[in-house]
């Protein structure tokens, strides 16, 4: 197990380097320069001050030197300063936004698995019945619904028509005067719609995947054996089959992370949630290069960590890997 862990962590190093290289290339291949954005605001900026700015940000150096500088700063966890008027360190800006995005996504992930696994199992166990068909219809529609459109409809229905839920931000106006209990309730009410929509987004894929792995497992010989020796159907499904059907699903956990984080741009923008997705959108619109690069790197690293955790769970669950034969 320790060997596996060390091997797995060493493999992260080239991936991390690759992530920074691709981030750097992507941002620097694009035409236009950040300095233009800053100087465009003040027409009085002379060629000299423009050159000073370029020098200040190191943009006058060749690309590989810039990459080297950026990389050595990154290794000291220095992501540079934002180009935005506040000029704060990128890392600070990201740090204050990350908790909300991560907690939203973790809650969504838990709900997603909590709902999708039973749905998938039900569909597999009652294969080809009316129930299975109904779940299939739901899954296909779920695959095809654009999340931002669903968000829009929910905002209209629950926010405008029924006015049950707030549709923007994470706090009500003046809520800072309330007791913590009311503040928590207020926060929860603001998060119901965004979380519901983030969950729904990946529910379809996961439940379909669960259904197909479960069907595959249920057709194995040892399931037939268990049934033949008279084990009750519930026990066959939940004790014998489920354990093995869950294995491939764990891998999917890591895979669904980039989609979730990427999706946070959409629902954080729609619901005006001050998270990393919204910060990224604002950064991109303002051509705040250090911020955009910082979030790209951190977003990709979150995925790396997610994948690592998923692999570790997999190793813990699957003795073949745990004992070094994987």
């Amino acid at each position, binding site marked *: 197990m320790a060997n596996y862990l060390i091997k797995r962590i060493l493999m992260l190093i080239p991936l991390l380097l690759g992530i920074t290289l*691709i981030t750097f290339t992507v941002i620097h291949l694009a035409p236009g320069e950040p300095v233009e954005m800053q100087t465009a605001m003040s027409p009085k900026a002379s060629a000299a001050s423009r050159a000073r700015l370029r020098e200040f940000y190191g943009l006058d150096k060749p690309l590989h030197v810039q990459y080297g500088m950026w990389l050595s700063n990154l290794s000291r966890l220095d992501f540079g300063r934002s180009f935005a008027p506040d000029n704060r360190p990128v890392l600070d800006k990201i740090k204050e936004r990350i908790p909300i995005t991560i907690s939203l996504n973790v809650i969504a992930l838990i709900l997603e698995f909590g709902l999708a696994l039973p749905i998938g199992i039900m569909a597999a166990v009652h294969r080809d019945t009316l129930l299975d068909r109904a779940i299939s219809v739901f899954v*296909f529609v779920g695959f*095809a619904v654009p999340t931002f*459109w669903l968000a829009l409809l929910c905002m209209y229905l629950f926010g405008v028509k029924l006015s049950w839920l707030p549709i923007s931000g994470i706090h009500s106006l003046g809520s800072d005067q309330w007791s913590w209990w009311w503040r928590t309730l207020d926060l929860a009410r603001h998060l119901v719609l965004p979380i519901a929509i983030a969950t729904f987004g990946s529910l379809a894929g996961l439940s379909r995947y669960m259904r197909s792995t479960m069907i595959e497992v249920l057709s194995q010989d040892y399931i037939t054996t268990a049934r033949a020796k008279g084990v009750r159907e519930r026990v066959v499904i939940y004790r014998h089959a489920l354990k093995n059907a869950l294995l491939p699903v764990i891998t999917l956990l890591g895979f669904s992370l*980039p989609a979730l984080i990427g*999706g946070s*741009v959409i629902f954080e923008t729609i619901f005006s949630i001050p998270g990393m997705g919204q910060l990224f959108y604002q950064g*991109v619109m303002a051509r705040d290069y250090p911020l955009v690069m910082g*979030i790209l790197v951190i977003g990709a690293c979150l995925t790396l960590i997610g994948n690592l955790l998923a692999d570790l769970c997999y190793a813990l669950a699957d003795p073949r890997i745990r004992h070094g034969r994987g």
Partner: protein
Amino acid sequence: MRDQVSSPYREFWQRFASNRFATAGLVVIAVLFLLSVAAGLVTPYSPDTIDAWHVLLPPSGSHWFGTDELGRDVFTRVVYGARVSLKVGFVAVGIAVVIGTVIGLFAGFYGGWVDSVLMRLVDIMLCFPTFFLILAVIAMLEPSIWYIMVIIGLTGWMGVARLVRAEVLSLKSRDFILAARVLGASDSRIIFRHILPNALSPVLVSATLGVAGAILTESALSFLGIGVQPPTPSWGNILTSGKDYIEFAWWLSLFPGVAILVTVLSYNLVGEGIRDALDPRRQQG
């Protein structure tokens, strides 16, 4: 005429056609295609004529889907918007399939360090939240539908590469490849004449599903205001004004969304249909 020869091609079609959902999906896509080509014949309005006297009208006999905040006919804009969606879907996936296939072929065929390097590249690309990457690049460029298609393609080839690689690995050791080699066929002949055609069927499935994904991505980008720019109508940017007027004009939000839903659903159904038809064991799988 009973002794019909059953070719694999015909068998494939028969199995595909026996799947009602997949056939329905194909019909919907065909209709959309015709609509978008003949958009000018389907509707009497033009997609960007502003009519200040007929602003935000609810659906009626003369405006089936109502009108928008500038008095433009929403039905007309949805029909013209189909052009964008179809174009984006096909071009973006075309790019992704070409890149993915080439990389998968090389990685699988040559193995060794070529394989390691290419597959690490796939791993790295898969780490990025795709939507972040697309957003970062698109926003730096002049807004244009071509950039959108290219960027969606450039960020979507990894799945195809993995599929093709796996297929090549399993084909490489088959006897007919050995036979070709013994007959003196060159690497490129083996790759493109013998391996590629056999590796393409799973790609077909993932390409069809990829079209659906590309349409969703484009509509989300346009919705955020960095995709297809007004006045060119796209389903996503109609929804942007839908969001602004959601309290007074539900029809602006409803119809373009339904259009996206139906189109994406159809591509998914066709994709699943192809998958089942290619592999008879997977029927109802």
